[in-house]
């Protein structure tokens, strides 16, 4: 019996031991050292279901909900459960053909497997939803899922309220991955500005899923679940009826209307034309409408009230007078002998609508008669003030005043996308004139032209400053937030701060200007704005403008500008109306502003105004060149599409002008001479200036 190998038993034990030690070491590494596996197992088996809170509601000044929530339904399908249904019947109900049905089922399977639900048809119309609910028992595997939707009960205030859309990767990154794919986020308007308030707090429900991703129950009986907190409501200054009225008036017009409460800076109404129905962006056709509107050259999605720059023209004059009065270069009784044009710069410009007769015998008269020479001259007096020693310094002082009036700076309204406006500093003129320029170079700044660009909101706010005799509150929509937290107060404080920017201008100056503006209504250019028993102060403006189309400079109808506030002694509303290419300030802007004031202060309209509402709302003042511009933009895009993707579907309808019948023989079907810029629309006056100053290199 060989016992000599007994020692090998020890080696065998050693082998066993080593193998076990190696395994235990690996176990120690996996279970104790490496910490990631717990999370991996959680990721595998626990599905954090986000519970979306109800988004906050936006109310108008009278407590009416102007942006609310509603529920719409998605038709879901779990392909594995679809058995024995009458496909033909089903398709007839949904207005689709069977091939489409099969395709959709296949898509669902590919996307989410057969055992998990996928969206079969999103956002059912109320009609389809009712039809489906009636006969849903016939179609196993199909069911409806609620989906909250934003609804605008008054079909108004699209630009103010904004819209929500699924967060894109940039939003998600910016939020530090708080948002996830598929979350909705406010993209414009108040929806975007007050996103944090409106969205509320998401809740999480932890569910357990199995290896096929089927949900099988609550994780740890919901011990880690958190509840969702609904978004908080916004109480705004908006007067929804006034808003609706203004939108009606701006139908088929390009421009903007802003009405402010001078006492609080609250925005009562803000309209940008062309307008759209905010409900068009939600619901089943939302994305279709969205792309249609983005491709529209009239820019319905652009909020011109805060983003469209217009030369204020004569509406600037009250501000020019206040500046000159405060600088002491003139007194309220200062007169200027205007003979129909301004001659002191040698070129006889600008011209004036009046000639002689003492129409500019003092500040008050000059406003009432809107004397161009007078304002060109007092602009020169201001910037050439000897106490500043040089036009550049004088100009900077003048520009500083403008900034104090809120021109050329962002006011800080509670909407995203506000423009600064355009008040250039002296360096721009230095560059243009090789450093040699005088007050004559840009004397039309004195009558709100040259390179000046303002938004309707800025002009309305400037009117508030005039009406308040020197102070203003930052224009804003939201008066208070429901259940205001400390963070909200911090957000809102800037709107509750009184900006006493120009209270240093003497009362006499304000009085002269205000009386002048009152005269404008009484017997000046704005007689149309007279309202019985209400002292309206106003100033009209008419700005020439041009556009460049097909390489030609075309003179367009004048922009109609109108600013006003009322009542004179206790101002409760300030309005700015800009109507592009409409004609004289008094013809369109005046009545619109008057109707607004009437509606707000009297809550009723006089008979004259009622007929005016009809007349104005029916008038189509859309500039004719838009049609041509749209055609050019569309065809240029179609041509680019064809070039980039060799897909002729878009270009087909533009090809009717070509004589060639052979498809390969296309003689450059679309004349693409110049690119058309979208923002051109709102910057028309600016373009003109560029043209004039020899910088007309529109690319």
């Amino acid at each position: 019996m060989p016992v000599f190998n007994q020692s090998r038993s020890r080696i065998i034990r050693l082998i066993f031991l080593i193998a076990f030690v190696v395994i235990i070491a690996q176990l120690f590494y996996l279970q104790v050292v490496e910490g990631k596996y717990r999370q991996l197992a959680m990721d595998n088996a626990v599905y954090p279901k986000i519970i979306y809170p109800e988004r906050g509601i936006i109310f108008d000044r009278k407590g009416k909900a102007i942006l609310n929530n509603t529920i719409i339904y998605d038709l879901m399908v779990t392909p594995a459960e679809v058995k024995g249904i009458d496909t033909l019947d089903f398709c007839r109900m949904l207005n689709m053909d069977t091939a489409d049905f099969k395709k959709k089922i296949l898509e669902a399977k590919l996307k989410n497997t057969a055992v998990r639900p996928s969206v079969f048809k999103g956002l059912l119309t109320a009609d389809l939803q009712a039809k489906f609910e009636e006969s849903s028992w016939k179609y196993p595997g199909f069911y409806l899922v609620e989906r909250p939707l934003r609804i605008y009960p008054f079909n108004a205030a699209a630009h103010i309220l904004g819209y929500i859309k699924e967060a894109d990767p940039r939003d998600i990154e910016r939020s530090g991955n708080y948002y996830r794919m598929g979350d909705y986020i406010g993209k414009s308007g108040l929806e975007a500005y007050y996103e944090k308030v409106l969205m509320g707090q998401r809740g999480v429900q932890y569910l357990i899923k199995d290896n096929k991703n089927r949900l099988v129950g609550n994780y740890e009986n919901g011990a880690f679940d958190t509840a969702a907190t609904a978004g908080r409501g916004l109480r705004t200054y908006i007067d929804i009826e006034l808003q609706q009225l203004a939108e009606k008036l701006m139908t088929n017009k390009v421009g903007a209307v802003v009405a402010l409460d001078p006492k609080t800076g609250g925005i009562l109404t803000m309209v940008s034309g062309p307008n759209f129905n905010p409900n068009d962006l939600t619901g089943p056709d939302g994305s279709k409408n969205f792309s249609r509107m983005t491709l529209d050259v009239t820019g319905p999605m652009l909020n011109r009230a805060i983003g469209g720059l217009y030369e204020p023209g004569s509406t600037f004059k009250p501000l020019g007078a206040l500046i000159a009065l405060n600088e002491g270069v003139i007194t309220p009784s200062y007169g200027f002998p205007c003979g129909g044009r301004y001659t002191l710069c040698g070129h006889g410009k600008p011209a004036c609508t009046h000639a002689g007769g003492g129409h500019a015998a003092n500040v008050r008269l000059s406003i009432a008669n809107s004397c161009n020479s007078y304002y060109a001259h007092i602009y020169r007096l201001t910037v050439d003030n000897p106490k500043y020693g040089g036009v550049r310094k004088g100009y900077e002082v003048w520009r500083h005043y403008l900034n104090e009036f809120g021109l050329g700076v962002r006011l800080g309204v509670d909407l995203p996308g506000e423009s600064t406006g355009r008040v250039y500093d002296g360096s721009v003129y230095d560059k243009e004139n090789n450093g040699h320029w005088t007050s004559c170079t840009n004397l039309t700044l004195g009558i709100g032209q040259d390179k000046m660009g303002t938004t309707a909101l800025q002009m309305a706010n400037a009117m508030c400053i005039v009406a308040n005799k020197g102070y203003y509150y930052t224009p804003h929509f939201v008066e208070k937030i429901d259940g205001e937290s400390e963070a909200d107060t911090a957000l809102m404080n800037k709107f509750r701060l009184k900006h006493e920017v120009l209270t240093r201008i003497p009362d006499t100056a304000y009085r002269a200007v205000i009386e002048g503006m009152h005269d404008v209504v009484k017997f000046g250019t704005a007689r149309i704005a007279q309202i019985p028993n209400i002292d309206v102060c106003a100033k009209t403006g008419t700005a020439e403008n041009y556009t460049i189309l097909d390489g030609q400079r075309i003179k367009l109808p004048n922009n109609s500008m109108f600013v006003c506030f009322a009542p004179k002694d206790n101002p409760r509303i300030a309005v700015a109306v800009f109507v592009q290419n409409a004609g004289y300030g008094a013809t369109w802007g005046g009545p619109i502003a008057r109707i607004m004031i009437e509606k707000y202060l009297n809550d009723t309209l006089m008979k004259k105004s009622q007929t005016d509402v009809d007349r104005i709302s029916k008038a189509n003042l859309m500039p004719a060149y838009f049609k041509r511009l749209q055609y050019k933009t569309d065809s240029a895009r179609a041509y680019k599409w064809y070039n980039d993707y060799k897909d002729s579907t878009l270009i087909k309808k533009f090809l009717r002008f070509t004589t060639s019948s052979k498809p390969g023989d296309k003689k450059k079907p679309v004349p693409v001479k110049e690119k058309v810029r979208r923002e051109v629309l709102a910057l028309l006056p600016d373009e003109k200036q560029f043209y004039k100053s020899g910088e007309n290199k529109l690319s």
Partner: protein
Amino acid sequence: MNDRNPAISKGIDWSIVWIYLALVAIGLTAIFAATYKEGDPFFQSFLRFKTDYSKQFYFFVISLLLALFLLLTDSKFFTATANLLYAFGIFTLLLVFPFHDDIKGTKSIIRLGAFNFQPAEFCKIFVCLALAKYLSRPETDFSKTRSQLIAAGIALFPAVLAIMQSETGLALVYFSFFIVMYREGLPSGILVIGFSVAALIVATLIFEKFTLAVILTVIAALALYSMRRQLKRNRSIFLRVAFLWAICVGIQLYAVPFVFKHVLKLYQVERIYSTVGKEVPSEYMAAHQKETTTEVKKKDTDYNVRQSKIAIGSGQLFGKGLLKATQTRYDFVPEQRTDFIFCTIGEGFGFTGSFILLAIYLLLLFRIVTIAERQRSVFSRCYAYGVAAVFFFHIAINIAMTVGLAPVIGIPLPFISYGGTSLLTFTILLFILIRLDADRQMVLR
């Protein structure tokens, strides 16, 4: 213990029996944890033989009966019938070829009514007996190469058959019998060579072909340089080193690729490579191109191991608790009641539980070795070592596979994995040993 029936209990090693019962209990718990669904009628399903844990329990009852039967058997029966049983085992293995049932891609299962038999599984018992019988023959001189070859033949013949039934995992088990042969005097050199070849193969997997060739050449050169003095006296050293070098490079450059291309199936190649954490080289993929095109449902090969590691790793130090193990309860680990049952323990009871289980297993193995060494008869000793070797191989490879240390080979974890055949087989293996040990004073031939 004196009050037990002396006829049966005399000489029985109770410690092993207790370990056995403990392991089976752990196994039943684990299977219960892995397959119990919320709201299952516990007792009803137990009675109705429906759930896996109740089935396993009935198998356990059968196993106990069988164990009792084995304890009542005369030890001489095993020596007397060892060769016959071996022949029977081979016969059933051969029977598989015409009568197999295609279940889950193996060709190794025979169906008999409601039961499935896997001859390659329980053939281990017969090989163990037959090998012990051969080694214990008085006329066997195990120092002779011929005897060594015959012994290897006895052990490996079923392995060959198992490979032909595409049960590579089960086949590999038979290689564990080299431990028995080693104990009985197989030259240590073979062990060294075996380890070296294994190391070389692993190196082949990890390194680039030619990098490894260069490394081997450098090693050979270094060896020659270090032996330059002896080299002057003895030229044959040079030849030996060159010969070794040639064999190593040959294995590495030709033999391993040959096996990977032509012997192993694609899924096996993938499993092996996923263990070392590498992609399958494109040349092997090309050689298996036919399989990839025909195999439509190609699953992510390291899915099992990844899920299994997540399950075990997420158990952390103390585990999540019996029915709170999400990974195993919601079917993330495939085959978790059978081959991957260890995950349930790793996830549910953490490192502590896993450590205790491994300690029990090590205790079992050491106990068997102790028993082996106290046998008077060579037969019993060889058999005991055989049992130890088989258990060791199963335990080590199975757990190493679940923690990602070994490629996925479908072999069960003794006494714990779900499966009637495996439980019966391991019970029989163990209780024959207990029976033989009870008669350790006898000299069996």
